[in-house]
């Protein structure tokens, strides 16, 4: 197994980097969209059931099915992978952001408005910082989920470690089949744990000490 990794060290590292990069990019885009949507929903409460339904139904669509649907639209390669992973990355963050932003104590919001803070200032300086821990929890869930989905996107030539799992599958019975699959799977788990740790650190740094649990 080590000889296998030794021979392909470069290729594995490139794939690992691409995998992490694809997921981080997708999670960021997804989170920014989700928080934006959640802010709109907080301003217009009637939209809340719609947002909740979207994230519930969205999660039931299997990623493999979505990749199939996207193929004709965005073709083979990284675009389809990015769009698919971003779609799934968005959902957990959206659900948590809606809960977080709406969950801010009404009296705090009222005293903010009472002091003359505008709608936007209240959203960004009061609601968002207070909801931040909940949102971050959503981002962690979405990151973990996206790692797996990014692997499946290798079926339509998406970048990342997924390709070595499929190569392993194609060479079942061959000498290195198990190695390929193991490198793919364990590589993704390691990246997932590493990014999760990174998120925890970012969480500690950006959450105000006043509300850090």
């Amino acid at each position, binding site marked *: 197994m080590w000889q296998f990794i030794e021979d392909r060290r470069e290729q594995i590292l490139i794939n690992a980097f691409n995998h992490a990069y694809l997921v981080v990019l997708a999670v960021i885009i997804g989170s920014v969209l989700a928080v934006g949507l959640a802010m709109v929903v907080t301003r217009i409460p009637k939209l809340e059931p719609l947002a909740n339904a979207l994230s519930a139904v969205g999660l039931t669509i299997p990623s493999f099915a979505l990749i199939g649907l996207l193929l004709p639209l965005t073709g083979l390669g990284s675009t389809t992978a990015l769009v698919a992973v971003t779609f799934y990355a968005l959902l957990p963050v959206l659900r948590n952001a809606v809960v977080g932003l709406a969950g801010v*104590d009404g*009296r*705090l919001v*009222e*005293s*903010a*408005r*009472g*002091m*003359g*803070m*505008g709608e936007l*200032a209240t959203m960004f300086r*009061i609601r968002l*910082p*207070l909801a931040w821990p909940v949102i971050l929890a959503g981002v962690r869930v979405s990151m973990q989920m996206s790692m797996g989905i990014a692997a499946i996107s290798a079926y339509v030539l998406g970048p990342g470690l997924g390709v070595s799992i499929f190569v392993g599958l194609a060479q079942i019975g061959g000498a290195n089949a198990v190695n390929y699959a193991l490198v793919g799977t364990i590589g993704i788990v390691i990246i997932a744990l590493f990014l999760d740790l990174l998120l925890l650190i970012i969480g500690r740094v950006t*959450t*105000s*000490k*006043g*509300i850090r649990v």
Partner: protein
Amino acid sequence: MDATNSTTHDSSPESGGGAEISGAEIRLENITKRYPGQKSAAVDGLNLTIPAGEIVMFVGPSGCGKTTSLKMINRLIEPTSGTIHIGNDDISQQSADELRRHVGYVIQGGSLFPHMTVARNIAIVPKLLGWDSDRVSKRVDELLDMVNLDPSRYRDRYPRELSGGQQQRVGVARGLAADPPVVLMDEPFGAVDPITRQRLQDELLSIQRTLRKTIVCVTHDIDEAIKLGDRILILQEGAQVAQYDTPENVLASPSNEFVSDFVGSGSSLKQLSLARVSELDIRQATTGRIGEPAKEAMDRARSAGDDSLVIVDDRDRPTAWVWLRQVKGDTLHEGDRESLHTLDNRATLNDALDTMLTSTHGGAVVTGDNDRYLGVVDFTAVVEHMSVMQTAAQERQEAEVPAESNPEDDHDPDAPMDDRESSDA
């Protein structure tokens, strides 16, 4: 009658005293608020003028529209009809946010933003108004001092590290941050224990003496209204004005049955509680300075026939009140300053009784300006004083009976006789 007069607050505008007025007058004209789907209006045609630099207490049973009326002054709730003026500009002409930056807003428990330090909480409005950071920082320190919180210790603390009373003080400081002419308070002292509440009330009074803002404060506690209010607005269902007058008049002559029930039976006893500690004859107990040889102080106390000793610091501020048998060691030391409940000489007899109930000496140490030691008062002194006032009040009662014709005019001769807005439906 003179007993009641002399108890008038010295804060009524004419009698001056304290800094000049920095508050603005508020006029509510025919204010109505009807919620969709509600049959009766929450506030139905309220007319009210709040003189500049005065504390006006909105008080009444829950659901009488006092909070709604308060929130219409900074447009947190928009009135269905009617106009409100602050100073002489109509508040509906300017943007709500702009208006609110010039109207302090303090609610129960301070509702500080937990993710901001005390300093950043207080600095919010000044920053919104674009003050430069030095001015903001100086202002924050100044305000923290004003509410008796040492800036260096509390500045960078987070709300969850403060006690209820401290949070409320920061809430008040935050409300006063931009030096607004008007400050609105919605049950500011509701969420703290009686002793802290009394201390916060005293501090608000002393702050008002220096700043002379126009403060509108909602409370459901009539005692608080009487203590704090220069005027009290008693509201009935639909914010109907039951009475709008000084605490004395409200106590002395409640305008209708609702008010007398609401103010509570034996209003004369309540009126008594208005008397100030400064009117009592304050006894001089023996005092000892921190670091003074204990034996000397104790001999002095024994010769004066005292069995207790008040320990004061170099700025003459009392730090402890100990029985002689408790004195240990050869020099007097500071003792636990926090646990000593002192009494401001401007506090009411009501507060005095509360403090005495909790102190082990059956009395209270009285302090004057800058917490300087004045003396001690004990239970008997308060009771004697009240009985003297009670007999005076009875004589006044009999004197009044024959002169039926015009009870009004000799009621409080020197109070200005502007025509009260009696409640119009």
